């Protein structure tokens, strides 16, 4: 029973971090209809940024949020503006821009290999004030870093949801994701919205990166396992849905952690994908997906 509670909470915390990475992916997809394969690599860039901040200045890992999140917003913004947009413009009239997907795959490989060249293949871990700190409660141990991390990611998810619902830019983003042409006709600057959406999606990775750093290691392909999970979560929660992504993340996290208490860890992957298939079978648009055609 204790093991169950311990792993349930751990699953929720880890799952909310998966969820936030997926939020970034779902946001970009919702607006641009582009599957961003470079998403995990952007997370990797964020993790290296946070790693070097802590390593070089010895600052509190959560203070790096103030540096890494704006940095990744700009990084994503510039990536969209200068790398993806030219391709996107060339395919303006295509409903599902395939070439852009290939470009994001290219960005993924370039970023991962640049990291390999500059930082080497070794696994890097940084000691922070919360690294290894545990809260003990009735023989159960909870990682402080994961508790803080889970809290921050949930707050970010709620804020992002509010931002899209009520702010002017948020409304413009939603309008664009619902109908590109109509939004443009209403005076929304489409390419500006794309840049912002890509920036926001990357900034989500920035938050996830900062909260991962105190208890995780960084290496050039660290984004890959998170990336694969994010794709599953996004489809599970419903493409373009932010609450869906967060909830999907938590569900995956719980299945992974709690499931492993009853079977070998290898089998939980089967459980995750089995559940995924089941949801798609019963509700093809995902848990929170709208019944509309994107």
């Amino acid at each position, binding site marked *: 029973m*204790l*093991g169950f509670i*311990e*792993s349930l909470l*751990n*699953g929720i915390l*880890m799952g909310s971090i*998966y969820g936030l990475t997926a939020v970034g992916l779902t946001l970009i997809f919702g607006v641009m209809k582009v599957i961003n394969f470079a998403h995990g690599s952007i997370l990797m860039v964020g993790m290296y940024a946070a790693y070097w901040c802590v390593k070089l200045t010895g600052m509190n890992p959560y203070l790096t949020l103030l540096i890494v999140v704006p940095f990744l917003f700009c990084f994503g913004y510039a990536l969209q503006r200068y790398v993806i947009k030219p391709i996107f413009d060339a395919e303006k009239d295509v409903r599902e821009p395939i070439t852009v997907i290939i470009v994001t795959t290219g960005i993924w490989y370039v970023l991962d290999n640049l990291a390999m060249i500059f930082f080497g293949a*070794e*696994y*890097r*871990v940084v*000691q922070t004030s919360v690294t*290894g700190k*545990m809260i003990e409660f009735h023989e159960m*141990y909870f*990682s402080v870093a994961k508790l803080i991390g889970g809290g921050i990611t949930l707050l970010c998810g709620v804020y992002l949801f509010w931002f899209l619902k009520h702010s002017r830019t948020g409304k413009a983003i939603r309008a664009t994701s619902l109908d590109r042409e109509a939004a443009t006709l209403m005076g929304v600057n489409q390419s500006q919205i794309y840049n912002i959406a890509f920036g926001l999606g990357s900034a989500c990775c920035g938050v996830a990166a900062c909260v991962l750093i105190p*208890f995780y*290691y960084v*290496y050039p392909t660290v984004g*890959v*396992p*998170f990336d694969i*999970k994010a794709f599953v979560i996004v489809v599970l929660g419903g493409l373009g849905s932010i609450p869906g992504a967060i909830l999907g993340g938590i569900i995956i*996290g719980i299945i*992974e*952690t*709690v*499931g*492993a*208490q009853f079977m*070998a*860890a*290898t089998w*939980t*992957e089967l459980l995750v994908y089995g559940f995924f298939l089941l949801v798609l079978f019963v509700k093809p648009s995902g848990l929170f997906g709208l019944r509309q055609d994107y």
Partner: protein
Amino acid sequence: MRWSSKFMAATAALTLTLGTAGFGSAAEVVKIGNIEPLSGPSAAVGIQGQKAREMAVEEINAAGGIKALGGAKLQLLYSDSKGDPTVGVTEAERMINSEKVHLLTGCWNSAVTYPTTQVAERYGIPFIVPVSVRDTITERGFKNIFRIAAKDSWWTRDQFQFLKDMQKEFGTDVKKVAFVYENGDWGTGFAEGWRKLAKAAGFEVVLDEPYPSTASDLTPVVIKLKRAKPDVVFMTSNAADAILLTNTMAEMKVNVKAIISSGGGHADPSFIAAAGKNAEYLFDIVEWETDLNRPGLKATNDKFKAKNGQNLNGESVDAYAAMYLIKDVLERSKSLDPAKIREALAATKLCGGDVGLLAYDCIEFDQTGQNKNASLVVVQLRKNGNSMDRITVWPKNVRRAGYTPVFPQPAK
């Protein structure tokens, strides 16, 4: 006239010396064919083996070669297997038919050694395998294949033997064991060996847990391990998962008497850097370490390092020993006839002296051609300032002088 006669005399003298020297060595050069991966993914280890062979052969030739064969010199011939079994087979054919080698050695990659030794067996040419771990290489009833290094299944055997010896030495009781391993070929292979050995030793297996090496979170495995309350944990991990597991185990205060790992990720320098003090007291099994308490080891290693800029390792030590084994065998066979060499090899008992740097005392082959004394060593990780030392603790006769292993490890 004066000039030309002087010149003639000089030429005659020169021809005479060269002639005799040439005549003498032509019949008495021992050709050793070495098939090694000198390019491709395993090139680094192949080149280490090459350097070690060269150093040993230089020493042997400088000391007068093979005395029983009138001071015959050893000559090394190399061919690059590229780590490819097909290339290995072709090269073995070429070595035997065109180069007419007397002996063969190689090939490090088990996949290359396996078919290549088959060629040598067919031609009846003695083949010495310094290192190639696959069990079956010496389990085919071949007459001419002799392996110096320990085989795969001995790793798990020695892990259990080590545990038994430690229990005896420190009077600690171990009843429950747990297996945590990556779910690939390597990890599941080890687990298979552990299960049999645990059953034979009467241990209770409280957890038998494979996990995917690519998992982003291994906390679930650690929670399970903690609830299972084992005395000793056996692990087979790659670098990333070794880091995650070791750190999470320390954070969740999983208290065990010992953790015994299987090289791989736990021997990776980045593991020690990333796990830091959480890795302290871990026991890791390896083929050879530079700090072994063996006579002559330091001098040989220093010489090798001065020459090549790197320490000897498991592979190069066995390659070095292989050359001295050849010397010893030829001194006894007194002939280059393959059948005689084979007979001498089978009767080998080469102890100490030139091969004193090995982790065990004597090279002796059983009927299958496996060196029956080959052993592995266990090291313990101990903090030393900011870095982590790998200190040899087992077998006891090679333990670093003055070191007492920490067993059971202190509670976290």
